[in-house]
């Protein structure tokens, strides 16, 4: 909203209003018009009109409602114009189940943005398409911005979006909130997409596996922290290869993911996993300022905790406590709780590692993957010592994974086996091409007094 009031909303104010209202406007019009393209175009027209008028007239009391009404009128005009030219253009809505069935008691209650989220994140769409659609339609990012964030050219991104919207229309992907029976699975898809957007913003300078903390794995000092709670995606793989390019836009992606997750949490207040994801994002984002120093990454143990954002941490902790009271844990809630323990500690040594370990036990029960087991082992090392952790690592099928080798190296170092540690650091180096990561590993090798090319 504009702080300058009706007198003179600046261009930046207008942009902010447009972006924050975009999802609502497009979602409502999609339901009314039954067509996403038509809704998008109408929203665009309404923005152009607002851009002309609002600087003079000031912001209307409810900009979102003004934009929706204006866009709707424009769309109706357009349909009338085109129907005189070609009656087939006036055909019935092409999107099925617009939710306006009077027999459907939910339709009057459900926010259209929720319908739009489930449509954008429909499992029949590729993950990359889900992300792009969500950012475009709900986030209001321009095609150029999304293309920039994912390092593809604008034409390719435009094509991807067009193809996805064609599929929604032709295959009749429904515009509705899934039934209770389908909801858990479909909600997981929406959460995964939102988290992917967040990670895309957060991980470019800390790709999965980089020896630093990341949202999935806030772990102890110096240990490599492999995981992202979502499986490594093509998007993340791409991020890994390009490093910290496009930093500004990517920070936007974090903010955008948090904003959309907040919206989802408002719309689905009874879904603890939505809150869990929100808390996970907040507690991760809270550490942003301390994560990078002089272009290099700072591991959790070395971070200046006074630079952590205490407001975000307080909000995240509040949400985690609320989740605990509900007693319906899930993977995002557990990850958020792990982050809560870390952000609760004044130093890495003051961290309640037994609590972290108990949470990883819980996570492993929900998600029995070797990656989670690897992270749990890091907590084991803090509670029972590095040797106990090494025994767990020996049983994991991750030898070809650089983060596994980096973790192993650190544990071996702490267990008093510098030569074996050097060899593991070397294997980790061989397994990654990421410059920041290689620099970190070389630094560790140097500390061990081993030449970087020795080992094995």
């Amino acid at each position, binding site marked *: 909203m504009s702080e300058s009031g009706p007198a003179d909303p600046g261009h930046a104010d207008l942009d902010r209003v447009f972006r924050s209202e975009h999802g609502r406007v497009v979602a409502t019009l999609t339901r009314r018009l039954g067509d996403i393209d038509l809704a998008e175009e109408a929203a665009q027209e309404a923005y152009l009109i607002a851009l002309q008028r609002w600087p003079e007239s000031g912001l209307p009391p409810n900009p979102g409602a003004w934009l929706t009404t204006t866009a709707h009128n424009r769309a109706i005009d357009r349909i009338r114009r085109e129907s005189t030219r070609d009656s087939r253009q006036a055909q019935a809505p092409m999107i*099925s189940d617009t939710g306006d069935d009077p027999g459907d008691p939910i339709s009057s209650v459900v926010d259209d943005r929720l319908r739009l989220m489930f449509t954008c994140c429909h499992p*029949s769409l590729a993950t990359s398409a889900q992300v792009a659609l969500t950012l475009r339609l709900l986030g209001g990012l321009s095609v150029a911005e999304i293309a920039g964030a994912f390092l593809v050219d604008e034409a390719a991104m435009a094509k991807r979006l067009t193809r996805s919207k064609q599929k929604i229309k032709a295959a009749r*992907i429904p515009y509705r909130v899934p039934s209770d029976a389908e909801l858990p699975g479909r909600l997981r898809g929406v959460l995964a997409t939102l988290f992917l957007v967040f990670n895309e913003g957060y991980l470019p300078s800390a790709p999965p596996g980089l020896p630093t903390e990341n949202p999935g794995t806030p772990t102890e000092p110096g240990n490599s922290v492999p995981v992202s709670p979502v499986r490594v995606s093509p998007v993340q793989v791409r991020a890994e290869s390009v490093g910290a390019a496009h930093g500004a836009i990517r920070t936007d992606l974090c903010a955008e993911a948090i904003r959309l997750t907040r919206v989802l949490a408002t719309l689905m207040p009874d879904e603890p996993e939505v809150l869990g994801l929100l808390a996970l994002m907040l507690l991760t984002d809270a550490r942003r300022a301390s994560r990078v120093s002089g272009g290099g990454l700072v591991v959790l143990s070395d971070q200046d905790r006074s630079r952590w954002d205490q407001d975000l941490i307080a909000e995240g902790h509040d949400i985690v406590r609320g989740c605990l009271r509900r007693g319906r844990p899930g993977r995002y809630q557990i990850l958020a709780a792990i982050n809560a323990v870390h952000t609760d500690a004044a130093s890495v040594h003051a961290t309640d590692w037994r609590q972290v370990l108990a949470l990883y036990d819980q996570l492993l029960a929900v998600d029995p993957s070797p990656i989670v087991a690897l992270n749990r082992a890091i907590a084991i090392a803090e509670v029972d010592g590095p040797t106990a952790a090494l025994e767990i690592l020996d049983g994991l099928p991750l030898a070809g994974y650089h983060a596994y080798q980096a973790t192993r190296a650190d544990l071996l170092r702490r267990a008093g086996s510098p030569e074996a540690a050097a060899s593991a650091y070397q294997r980790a180096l061989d397994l990654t091409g990421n410059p920041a990561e290689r620099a970190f590993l070389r630094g560790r090798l140097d500390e061990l007094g081993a030449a970087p090319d020795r080992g094995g």
Partner: protein
Amino acid sequence: MAQYLLSVHGSDTDEMPDDVQEVYAAVDSFNKEVQASGSWVFAGGLNPASTATVVDGTGNGDPVITDGPYLESKEHLGGFWIVDVPDLDAALELARRGSAACRGPVEVRPFQPEPDA
């Protein structure tokens, strides 16, 4: 309502499972359910792709007739359903059940709407 092609692709050289009768029975029972639900338009199983013939009538002279399937592929269309359902979710649900019954992945593809739809 919209029509979807639910197609099953497989290798012609796959050996029949020992309990092939069970597969037939499961598909038969699924077919009856689809018919009872009113979503049924058509369905059928195809003979092996080796029995196919391709006719190319795009040239000026006689059509070119070729023995064998159009696509050189290990796997071919083996059978399909055409169903009429409200939306993709309904089609995906039928595909899930059809896939379980025939023990193969099912591709779901929407038909273009009728011109006067």
